[in-house]
């Protein structure tokens, strides 16, 4: 097993921290701070401020995203919040509201 997986039916109300990669298929409310890759899958929902090495969103995120390296919003992504990352990719079709900060 490598990495944390927040499964489909899992709801976490609180904070998730650590050094593992995290895949969110369920719901996390609160705060996510990981020293790895964070993937929010299509059915995943984050109502949290996010800090990670890199972030890929296919689901829904409400909260600020702060990525050390890159932030990626796939076509299915629905994101509301500010993004701060040196590399930001917002795919065509993604729904996004917020401000982007790409200063290194």
């Amino acid at each position, binding site marked *: *097993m*490598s*990495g*944390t*997986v*927040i*499964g*489909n*039916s*899992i*709801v*976490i*109300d*609180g*904070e*998730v*921290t*650590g*050094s*593992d990669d*995290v*895949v969110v*298929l*369920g719901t996390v409310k*609160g705060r996510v701070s*990981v020293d*790895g890759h964070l*993937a929010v*899958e*299509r*059915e995943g929902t984050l109502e949290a401020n996010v800090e990670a090495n890199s972030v890929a969103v296919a689901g829904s995120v409400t909260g600020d995203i702060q990525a050390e390296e890159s932030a990626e919003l796939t076509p299915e992504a629905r994101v509301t919040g500010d993004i701060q990352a040196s590399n930001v990719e917002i795919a065509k079709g993604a729904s996004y509201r917020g401000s982007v900060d790409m200063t290194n």
Partner: protein
Amino acid sequence: MRSGQKHIAVIDAGTTVRGRIEGEEDLHIEGRVEGDIRLAGGLFVGADAVVEATVQAHRVEVSGVVVGDVTAQEAVILTSTARVVGNVKGGVLSMAEGAAVRGQVHSAASEGFTRSSGVSRARSSRERTSSRAKSVSRPTTRTTTKAKSSVATSGASDEERTLVVTHSDLRAGQKTARGRVAKKAPKKAAKKKAAKKRTRAKVPARGKRKASRRS
């Protein structure tokens, strides 16, 4: 990791979750969780995992550390590396040799299985069941709070404290089939008796052969 693929929910070794976790599926914990866990599925606590949480799940399998009460509708399984500080309650319980538990252990099969009925069954005809024993239908209830509080503080003295509580149960005219617990109470009583005798011991006064009854 596309959707549709079957995932197993995992809190991995490097991850800490603080707060409340709820879900319908199985969850494997290899890392650390502090708070509260409620699952309709199974919970697996890995050997290196530390869970400081109240745990409720359909089934709970522990190989690591759990500090908090564990309740499972179906079964609680403690493997040989399990360390649990808290009350354990499950439909069925399984505890491997080497597993450590500090707290009350309760299985569904023991519902309505009171100490008095347990004693009478265990000792059958050999022992009388005192009428007082019947009143102690749930002998362990009093331990609950104490065990809980001692659980939180931890330390070597906890075990002793728990034993003291057991004594008070035994004092209510109870005797158990279990040697360790049963032995203690009579010993205490005997000591008391001996002490009483000693104060009353009659020593003849100097130069007299008989101890006087007075004074």
